[in-house]
């Protein structure tokens, strides 16, 4: 299991939290996902044998969010 914390600068409202957490249903191998609007962070735990961090990053940007490097 791998854990990543991504900073999402353009998470502008609490609705973004639900949008981002929907990635759990769209990507395989996500074990835990939690977005935090107050900290503008997305915390993801995933099974690397099924999904890579790069794929998760791509999915986040695909739904319109930026990821701070």
């Amino acid at each position, binding site marked *: 299991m791998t854990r990543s914390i991504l900073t999402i600068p353009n998470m*502008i*409202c*609490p*609705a973004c939290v639900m949008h981002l*957490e929907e990635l759990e249903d769209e990507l395989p191998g996500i074990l835990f996902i939690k977005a935090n609007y107050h900290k503008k962070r997305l915390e993801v735990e995933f099974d690397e044998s099924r999904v890579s961090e790069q794929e998760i990053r791509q999915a986040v940007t695909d*739904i*319109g*969010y930026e990821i701070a490097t």
Partner: protein
Amino acid sequence: MDNAILVAFITGLTAGGLSCFAVQGGLLSASIAQRIEETSPANIRRAAPGKKNAGRADASLQPGMIQPILLFMTAKLVAYTVMGFLLGWLGSLFTFSPTVQGAIQVAIGIFLVGNALRMLNVHPIFRYFSFEPPSGLRRYIRGVSKRNDTWITPLYLGALTVLIPCGVTQAMMAVAVGTGSPWLGAVIMFAFILGTSPTFIAVSWLVTSLGAMFQKYFYRVVTVIVLLLGLYGINAGLTLLGSPISASRVARAFQAEEVVEAVPPVTEPANVEALPLVTGQPLVEVEVVTATPAAPTSAAGSVARINVENNGYSPNLLALPANQPIELHLVTENTYSCARAFVIPELEIMQILPETGDTVVYIPAQPAGKTMEFMCSMGMYTGVFQFN
């Protein structure tokens, strides 16, 4: 129509509809997603900020999507009305003094202004003005939105919106508690959600049709409206608290300077006289009747009368004799506005007046030169007593 109900409706129609959509729009999208899939091969994409094509749907709203939207909105309306009833009932368990009511109004105003500053991204601290539903609840709602039935899912999701109220809705819920009446609380929330409905549907269409272009202006409009509502709430609360910095007091301070010269000195009181007013407003008939042996039933020294009307108090500037108690008659005649909730904060007097009738309030003797404000419990309609 009671002004508080009208304000709730207009708040819903403007800021409420837009703000609610930001939080609950995803659920509505989920409600109509299946119907969109039936009419178009592509799925609706969720609106997200910052990306040019984000939020652009591949199918705009079509007649077939009306049914789930109506089901969603109806369930939402019923759920919030029930919640308004419960909140009003909760409020009825407590007696709010004018001071507490003022403090609640100020708190609601600060909450709205904080939300506006959050939306303007002024400082990260303002993000704490927004409440997120717990993660377990978010997961549950997400699970429901994946169900594949055209009737039950929209109804259920609409009802579930009570669990994720937006900032403006949360403020309106506080207003419902403040009414202290289950039925008025229910009506306030009904009017508010009814007001949000056309905006909610219009925004759904605009977001799905215009996408990011609409999003760009969407937040600016909401922010300005939320900011104005917040400032209005703070001012109403400050008025109730008797603060010297409320807008009505500041305005009156400027008016009073102009008036002093224009007003003739107070003459000896007669049995019935129209006393001059101390501000620049036109003279109105202030009926001040000194108590005489012919009116022994009056325990007060003088009797005054205010007509409580749907659009405020008439007169709203009364010159009263100093150093003697006043028997104040508050006369209502088919009055339905919040002016019926008459408050004199300084004396901690709050009186709910009948729709039609004559209610007496006693004001103890006040020294000459003293001014005292009166108002409705929402701080919308105000007036002043001047003791001479």
